[in-house]
């Protein structure tokens, strides 16, 4: 663990204020941390702790009021909207709680979406990479299923494939298991652990403390500040957790 690792994300005293009416809300009150390549970090906190604001910062959807944010060496704070859009396209894979797949669209086309905004990728390559990503999440046999013909777990897998397809520097998951039942949640967690094992950098924002035990590091936020940042020495296996679940008689 001590060998020199690449820094993917670096936050230096990031603050974010919102002006609501005449009041200024300090959503982030100076957050600093580094995330290295290959880490599986959970960011936890109750609602109002600033984790959504932090996620928007990490996802380059928003810029800090003060402080610096470097994503893969790029300073985000001074970037324009379009520059950040391009940066998101190349460096970030988003996974949302409610999947956000395009309706009436096949899985392959959904996964192709980020590559469509990258003119360097040809239509043929786009398709190949989408198929590859879908195979990696275990949906190789559901390439042409439309989003409304799939279960929640399958939709979330498509979303994960979509997040993988541009080979991002970091995968940002926002409550990715929030809409799923326990068994499906475990299945998705197994997938996350597999991606982690393959060396991908994952940030998983959640309010569910259970998930922390399956990640390699846990950052906890409260009132816009980090209150704990611990490496997890005892990473639980989601696959074992899944096996330990009582057999699902519903299916």
């Amino acid at each position: 663990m001590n060998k020199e690792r690449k820094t993917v994300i670096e936050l230096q005293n990031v603050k974010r204020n919102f002006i609501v009416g005449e009041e200024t809300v300090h959503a982030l009150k100076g957050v600093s941390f580094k995330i290295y390549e290959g880490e599986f970090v959970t960011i936890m906190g109750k609602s109002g702790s600033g984790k959504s604001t932090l996620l928007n910062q990490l996802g380059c959807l928003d810029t800090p009021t003060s402080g610096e944010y470097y994503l893969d060496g790029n300073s985000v704070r001074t970037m324009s909207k379009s520059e950040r859009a391009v940066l998101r396209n190349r460096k970030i894979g988003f996974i949302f709680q409610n999947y956000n797949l395009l309706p009436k669209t096949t899985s392959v086309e959904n996964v192709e979406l980020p590559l469509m905004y990258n003119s360097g990728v040809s239509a043929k390559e786009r398709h190949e990479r989408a198929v590859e990503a879908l195979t990696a999440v275990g949906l190789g046999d559901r390439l042409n299923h439309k989003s409304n013909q799939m279960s929640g777990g399958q939709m979330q897998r498509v979303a994960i494939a979509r997040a993988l397809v541009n080979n991002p520097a970091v995968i940002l998951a926002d409550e990715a298991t929030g809409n799923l039942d326990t068994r499906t949640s475990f299945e998705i967690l197994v997938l996350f652990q597999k991606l982690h094992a393959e060396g991908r950098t994952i940030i998983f924002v959640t309010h569910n403390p259970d998930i922390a035990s399956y990640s390699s590091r846990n950052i906890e936020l409260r009132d816009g500040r980090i209150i704990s940042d611990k490496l997890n020495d005892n990473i639980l296996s989601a696959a074992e957790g899944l096996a330990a679940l009582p057999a699902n008689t519903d299916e």
Partner: protein
Amino acid sequence: MNISTLFKIALRAIFANKTRSFLTALGIIIGIASVITMLAIGEGTKQSIKSNISEMGSNMIMISPGADRFGGVQQSASSMETLKLTDYQALKDECKYIRAISPTVSASGQFIYGNNNAPSSVTGANADYLEIRQLKVADGEMFTDTDIKTSAKVCLLGNTVAENLFPDGADPIGKVVRFNSIPFRVIGVMEKKGYNSMGMDQDDYVLAPYTSVMKRILAQNYLHMIVASATTEGVTEKATEEMTSILRRTHKLKDASDETAGDEDDFNIRSQEELSNMMDSTMTMLTVLLGSVAGISLIVGGIGIMNIMYVSVTERTREIGLRMSVGARGIDILNQFLIESVLLSVTGGVIGVLLGLGVCAFLNQVIHLPISIQVWSIIMSFAVCTFTGIFFGWYPAKKAAQLDPIEAIRYE
């Protein structure tokens, strides 16, 4: 993001809501179809009236008695007795710019042959009349100068009259028909001209020497009209001026001097050109009117597109948020929605053009409306469609492009 991908996305969005897309495009379809049809009808009518006027005669100049205003009161032209045979003779002898001239008088009444009778009118003229009015004798011969000198009781029948009097198809030539009680020998039948665009039968007439009509039927010594043909279209105006000055002299009208105002013309000269120009400007106005009414429906169609694009942007806020979070820039979203609205309106335009052409063909075939499809109106339609798509799509597209991805992605 390249253009073909954008088109693919736009097509998918359009086909995702087939009914709505069709209803939206319907505004444009109806707008374009009506613009094309209206312009075709306007232009068709204009051309048919033009050809009607030229069918009336070649470079024709018509002189009728009576001023436009006489003693402050508008007089009926036929009650005027100012146009005499001497005027005709003077014009015929002196006018350099005319190649044919004929006096005309007409009387209406009943033509009778055997058991058959037909109401019609007899026009008294000379042989030049055929050239001026572009008439042809189909069968038989035109009357001669001798017939005119002797006021011969001969006549030529228009096709309609011939058919009415001789329904069994007998040869009318040589037969004697009676006009009221006066017998006329038929010496010819005129070539059929058919109906004009105003629905008037152009074959419902009988020709006879003007002397015969004046002496034997009307018993009058004045003319109803003098018609002439200018030598070329270009000199029509000169011919009119020349005729005016000759007639003013023969009618002994005083020209305006320093002290007194001149006498007004007691006759009226109209050239075919003048008539044609007048009709032309009237019809152009009609075409513009029809076109603008149709144009308004096109604008309404465009507003329909704007409305639907607005709804579409709101409905697809989440999709826009997602696209933005995976790397779509504002310009990509703007292009996506603009192309969608342009595609919608141009598709509507294509269907509209086809529909317009179909309606034109229908009107022409079934109702026999004169139609002249304007190529420029089709080209213009496409330009207008594209413009409509961009113009009315711009605002909603701009709104979409300016959405905040953070709010858009969580939009419920």
